[in-house]
């Protein structure tokens, strides 16, 4: 018993597994509650739990472009910590005399600005934030004519024409313009001249995805940049920094979530379904039949359904491949 306690936290991979499964957020609430208390209130193996938690923290918490929520949170905290100082940043840089004269005006401006930021969902003027909730997607026509379809639970902020910030996933159908169209999503910046592309930057997710359906876009990350063309998809793994470019089908100019639903099921390409299954079940899927990637399937994969169930359904529907599962590796032949 003594020996076991002397071991380093890393000697108990189970601790990390539980923490990761918990943070993934897919466990039933009752089990999640018990794990949360085991994790935070039960001091046994405190070091091991903290190490697993800190690893996830270092992976997920990062320096990023501030969103509306961060600004609101700062406003509230500033009122607590530095009462009476909320106008400080706005008056700085003016001369004292000018500041004295401008003060009433600025106060009005400040109030209008605060009101404006609270008006979530308005689309008038030069800046706005559009948010989606629940399961519904939403179409937004930007002032320059660019069409954006926002996936559920996403936020799109545009400060000026042709510069937007995205939290979540959206399809952009960009009209050509004099200025390049720029999307900031998490830690990447996507610059385009006129094209259709999909950006997936889901908060809390461990990856960023940019899929280009038409035209060309330039994607810039931290210390790297890449031009991605129609038919290419760039995947950035945020924890490892690993980048991959994969081919995608562009006959359908939209990702599956943008397509009209068919009898409650969504239509997806075989390749997309495989990557979804691989990430959902934490396995690697080797597809030795890449020519099948573009086949369209009407397919749904509910919570709790196993990988094997899904593959069996696909096999019956497609009737043109076989699969083998060996531990973490799946092969399609």
């Amino acid at each position, binding site marked *: 018993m003594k020996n076991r306690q002397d071991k380093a936290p890393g000697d108990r991979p189970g601790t990390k597994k539980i923490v990761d499964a918990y943070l993934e957020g897919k466990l039933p609430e009752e089990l999640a509650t018990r794990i949360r208390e085991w994790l935070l209130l039960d001091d046994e193996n405190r070091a091991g739990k903290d190490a697993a938690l800190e690893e996830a923290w270092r992976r997920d918490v990062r*320096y990023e472009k501030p969103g509306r929520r961060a600004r609101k949170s*700062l406003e509230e905290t500033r009122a607590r910590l530095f009462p009476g100082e909320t106008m400080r940043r706005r008056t700085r840089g003016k001369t004292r005399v000018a500041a004295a004269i401008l003060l009433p005006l600025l106060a009005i401006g400040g109030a209008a600005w605060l009101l404006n930021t609270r008006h979530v969902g308005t689309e008038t003027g030069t800046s706005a934030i559009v948010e989606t909730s629940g399961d519904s997607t939403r179409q937004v026509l930007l002032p320059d004519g660019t069409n954006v379809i926002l996936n559920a639970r996403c936020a799109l902020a545009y400060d000026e024409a042709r510069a937007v910030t995205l939290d979540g996933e959206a399809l952009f159908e960009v009209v050509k313009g004099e200025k390049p169209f720029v999307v900031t999503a998490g830690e990447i910046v996507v610059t385009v001249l006129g094209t259709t592309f999909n950006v997936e930057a889901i908060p809390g997710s461990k990856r960023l995805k940019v899929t280009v359906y038409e035209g060309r876009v330039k994607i810039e990350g931290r210390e790297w940049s890449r031009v991605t063309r129609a038919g290419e998809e760039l995947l950035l793994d945020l924890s490892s920094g690993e980048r991959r470019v994969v081919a995608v089908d562009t006959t359908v100019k939209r990702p599956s979530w943008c397509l009209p639903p068919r009898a409650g099921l969504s239509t997806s390409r075989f390749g997309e379904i495989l990557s979804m299954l691989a990430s959902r079940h934490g396995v690697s899927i080797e597809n030795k039949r890449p020519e099948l990637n573009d086949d369209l399937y009407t397919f749904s994969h509910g919570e709790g359904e196993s990988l094997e169930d899904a593959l069996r359904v696909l096999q019956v529907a497609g009737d043109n491949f076989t699969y083998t599962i060996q531990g973490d590796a799946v092969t399609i032949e």
Partner: protein
Amino acid sequence: MKGCTKTNILIENDISPEMLVLLRDGSHAAYEEIYLHYADSVHRFIEQLTRSGEAAREITQEIFVQLWERRAQVDPARSFKGYLFTIARNAAINFIEHQKVRGKYLEYSLHNNNESVGPSDEAMIASETALLVEIAVSRMPRQRKKIFLMNHEEGLNPGAIAERLHVSKHTVESHLATAKKEIKKMLE
């Protein structure tokens, strides 16, 4: 990850030491800069941890209030994320403890306090194993979960389960074998 070529791009998202020196010295501007750039991801993490948006909002603010109040302890030579983690961890623990006091977790706390001396290392490991098994079970498809629980909790044999569920004994056995494999993999 198998079969992928690693590009080895290090994404280290910590703030510059200069900014941390300014924070330690009490610069409001540096504090606000750090606040704005970390608050969103801190909020997301805490929301994952507490499963509550409202808790995440409160705890995130508390973390940054603590950061300001303990700015003198910031060491610019060390990882800022690591320092912020220590604050966040304690803030999260405080919050969950408070929730418990408020009675939300009464049942569990009673159960926990029964053990006058803390659980032994042996018991700890057993409970960790139990959680891993529960996670594996929660991920099983409905039918397999049902069969596994009938076998393990009700002690029914495959024949009896097959009869009750109107499926073949072979189906039950195959589900049980897969269930065992899944659990074994979880415990590896």
